[in-house]
């Protein structure tokens, strides 16, 4: 795997609003959704936390938000312990060459990051082939959609990195 693009990294500094709008942004950030809103109760369990973060990271990567890609990417890495897959997402972006379950999650999140968002039958079949059930797929859709909201707020109001 060529390691040529280093701009999307896990240690990108935290996001900060553009000067002058910090106070209003502070209030807005309190109300913003995050992937933690998808509160998996004991049953049904749904998409694991690391994969929800990975889906959010894929959306942030697709939109070009380096700080959010780093934040979600770190959470994905901490939960999944899959260094290579997270690194490939950071370096290659969308479309993502990864196969397997994590590749299917990233590809579906990338499809939902597009405008228009189109989750194709092929995307869904790939998720089902990787044993994602209705709850998992619903969680993936929610994670990607919430990240599509948050990343736009961060890019619209502050430094991308």
């Amino acid at each position, binding site marked *: 795997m060529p390691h*040529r*693009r*280093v*701009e*999307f990294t896990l240690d990108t500094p935290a996001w900060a609003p*553009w*000067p*002058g*709008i910090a*106070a*209003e*942004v502070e*209030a*807005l950030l309190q*109300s913003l*959704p995050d992937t933690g*809103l*998808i*509160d998996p*109760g004991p049953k*049904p369990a*749904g998409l694991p936390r690391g994969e929800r973060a990975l889906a959010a990271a894929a959306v942030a990567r*697709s*939109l*070009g*938000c380096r700080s959010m890609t780093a934040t979600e990417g770190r959470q994905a890495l901490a939960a999944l312990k899959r260094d290579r897959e997270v690194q490939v997402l950071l370096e290659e*972006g969308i479309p993502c060459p990864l196969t397997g379950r994590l590749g299917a999650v990233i590809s579906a999140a990338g499809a*939902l*990051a*597009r*405008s*228009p*968002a*189109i*989750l*194709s*039958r092929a995307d*869904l*079949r790939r998720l089902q082939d990787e044993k994602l059930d*209705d*709850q998992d*797929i*619903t*969680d*993936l*859709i*929610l994670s*990607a*959609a*919430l990240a*599509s*909201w*948050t*990343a*736009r*707020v961060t*890019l*619209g*109001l502050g430094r*991308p990195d």
Partner: protein
Amino acid sequence: MTHHDTTLVERLAGVVPGSPIDRAWRARAAARRFAEEAYCRLLHPLDPGPISLVERRAVAAFVAVLNGEGQTRDHLLALLRDTDPTLAPLARLIEREAEDSSHPGPYGRYPAGPLSAEDLDGPVYAVAYPVQHELGLRLSAALEYAHLVTLHPRDATPESLAALARAGWTNGGVALLVDIIGFVNFQSRVVAGLRSHIAARQPQLAVV
């Protein structure tokens, strides 16, 4: 089974009460409630504050048309039109402006460097002068910003906010504006995703 407590997402996505996807969606009670409350707070506010009801709904309809999810688009265009009996022409204008400036996203440019290989060119939306006259400076600036943040958000700069300020937007108004834009991007994707998921299950149901 009857559910009187349906939310906008379920209605737009065509979620059948009691179906497996309905159960999966309702199992995410906090996110489901959050989506409905955001819709009410942003597009049916008790106190509109720094953005008028018409401005809120005009921006939301514009973003929905840009995103191309049919149900969300129809709903938000109708919401704008029905805000006031005089608004049908504005709704048509918003629809046309969005259709004419819609382009597959996300695109945009990165600062010069290795990521430049990922640069994707696309249109920068600027409201034409005669249309600006009809929409007013304030709403024109809001639509230009909504187009940027929806389709090529990586191109946003401090100048994007300065343009809003010149058109009379306060910081409080801008924060609400970007929240509305973000929300419609969220809503369009939840509805598109759930509809695709539901549609993909149809052949199996037909066999049963």
